[in-house]
């Protein structure tokens, strides 16, 4: 049982149709355009652990998160939850799996319906997934949930706009917890928050994991934030996982040149006043991915092989999997 990872991605890919509207496409004779948002993604999240996905905009980390909760269906490969392939549709089976997973979103101002009161928001999963529950039980549960995330039960009668960003994110978390899920996808849950509040939310999430044994898929662009929550770490670049492994190992000794670059780019408070050389170049658009290793145009160590051949992710011994021609050979 313990061997089965709660979430497993096996060679998962997801494409999007980004073509112009049909009429315009036909009129100006444009071809259909596909965007490969995620490709060949393989990783496992063990029960009770946190896997953090890190990467810059357009790297596909949010798509992975949405694939993990079934908002998107994979174009290729399999997503397994608790050993079973993710069911699709809206049948009973799907609902049963849905109840076990939840998602927390980035923007606390957009993730709560502004016209709903807090108790309705928090109780929504209960109503959908446990329709038999009585109103009193539901109200009690909502109160308990609000207390659990550090809000007062009386807050249930308020509207979202009466709360600050941090409080709203707590409401989001309460909603996510209401169906007693085992697995939470947290998509940049703190990047819209001020630092002092970010700390509160990160600490809360850690506490909840310890108390409830939750499993997190934590998505962030900020390596420093990730360090506080992650057991394992996956670094993504242009739709591919370039490095996956224990967070400690990766952060101490990044193997992939991109991971190294990301680490170097984090502004370091201790380095005040000292200058350093930033990485050159910018992320290309996912629509025209560079050939071979997508990172090669920016990589200081790129060779001819990197330009031609897409590197395959391979284990390098210390629990890590790295997709780079230069590593492990």
């Amino acid at each position, binding site marked *: 049982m313990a061997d089965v990872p709660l979430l497993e991605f096996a060679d998962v890919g997801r494409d999007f149709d980004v073509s112009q509207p049909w009429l315009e496409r036909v009129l100006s004779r444009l071809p259909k355009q596909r965007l490969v948002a995620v490709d060949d993604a393989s990783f496992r999240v063990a029960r009770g652990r946190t896997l953090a996905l890190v990467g810059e905009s357009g790297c596909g980390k949010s798509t992975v998160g949405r694939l993990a909760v079934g908002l998107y269906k994979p174009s290729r490969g399999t997503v397994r939850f608790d050993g079973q392939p993710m069911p699709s549709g809206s049948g009973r089976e799907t609902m049963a799996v849905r109840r076990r997973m939840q998602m927390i979103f980035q923007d606390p101002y957009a993730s709560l319906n502004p016209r709903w009161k807090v108790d309705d928001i928090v109780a929504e999963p209960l109503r959908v997934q446990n329709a038999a529950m009585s109103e009193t039980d539901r109200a009690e549960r909502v109160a308990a949930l609000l207390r659990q995330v550090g809000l007062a039960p009386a807050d249930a009668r308020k509207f979202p706009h009466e709360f600050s960003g941090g409080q709203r994110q707590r409401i989001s978390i309460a909603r996510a917890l209401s169906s007693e899920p085992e697995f939470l996808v947290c998509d940049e849950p703190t990047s819209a928050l001020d*630092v002092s509040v970010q700390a509160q939310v*990160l600490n809360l999430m850690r506490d909840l994991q310890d108390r409830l044994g939750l499993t997190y898929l934590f998505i962030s662009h900020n390596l420093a934030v990730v360090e506080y929550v992650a057991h394992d770490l996956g670094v993504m670049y242009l739709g591919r996982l370039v490095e996956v492994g224990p967070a400690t190992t990766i952060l101490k000794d990044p193997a992939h040149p991109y991971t190294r670059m990301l680490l170097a780019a984090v502004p370091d408070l201790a380095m005040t006043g000292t200058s350093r050389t930033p990485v050159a170049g*910018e992320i290309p*658009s996912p629509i025209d991915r560079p050939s071979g290793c997508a990172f090669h145009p920016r990589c200081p160590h790129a060779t001819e092989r990197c330009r031609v051949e897409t590197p395959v992710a391979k284990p390098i011994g210390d629990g890590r999997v790295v997709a780079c021609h230069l590593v492990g050979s």
Partner: protein
Amino acid sequence: MSALLEVRHLRVAFETRRGPLVAVDDISLQIGEGEILGMVGESGAGKSVTGTAILGLLEPPARITAGEILLEGSRIDNLAPEAMRRLRGKRIGAIFQDPLTALDPLFTIGQQLVETILTHDAVGARAARDRALKLLGEVGIPAPEKRLDQYPHQLSGGMRQRVVIALALCAEPRLVIADEPTTALDVSTQAQIIELLKRLARTRGTAVLLITHDMGVIAETADRVAVLYAGRIAEIGPVREIVHAPLHPYTTGLMGAIPKLGALRSRLAQIDGAMPRLDAIPPGCAFHPRCTQRLAQCDREIPRAVAVDGREVACWLHGESSRG
């Protein structure tokens, strides 16, 4: 060091039907030539309002209700809108968070640059174009000749922000207000823009007011930093000292709350509560409800800024009495 920009006791209020809401209260600061002053604070602390006030771009219902702003010794807060507009192009440049809104999507980068140069300087079209090329090179845009004929949407976010910086620099301003210039950018690009700002200040002697919520960016870029809380400066002084040895409890809490690399899965220090809304700023020191070292007078009297070890801090812990 003579101050290029001096802000004295600035107060900005939003006129609402329930009375004025004070967004910026009694802010005083100076920026010298070639200096980068970081201004940090959480959302709603009044950073952007301060920047906008200096640029003379406040729009009703916001207006300056007290204080003065001096650029190179002369007041600019009471200038006529037309004079202020000329000043903004010529002596004060501005860089905003979203580079796309700062650029006109209908004109090429070259057209926008050349036009801006021609408005401020009586040079020929050819000279203006040469200068545009030079500027683009200076802000680190590769192959500037090619970029000159491109439209904003053809550039990446980082490139656009560089163009915006180039535009701000066209008239060789003495002061640049950079409001969250890196927030919309990826970390790798952010580092590049930080470097660019630093280089500008060093080589051109431009004074920069860098407004950001990211203490990391400030730490990397600024010479001095002003920490804002609820419209007031909590602490202002050299970056290194404030980062390493903050005096104000808010600054201390803030520094503790910032996730730092190399502190794997440790618990973050946190400040409980949230910054008050403008319509509910507590009496006395606005921070007192969240402060762990609260004194008796904190909820009664607003602490005045006092100089301590080369910086100024507005906290009763560092009042006259505690000064050794």
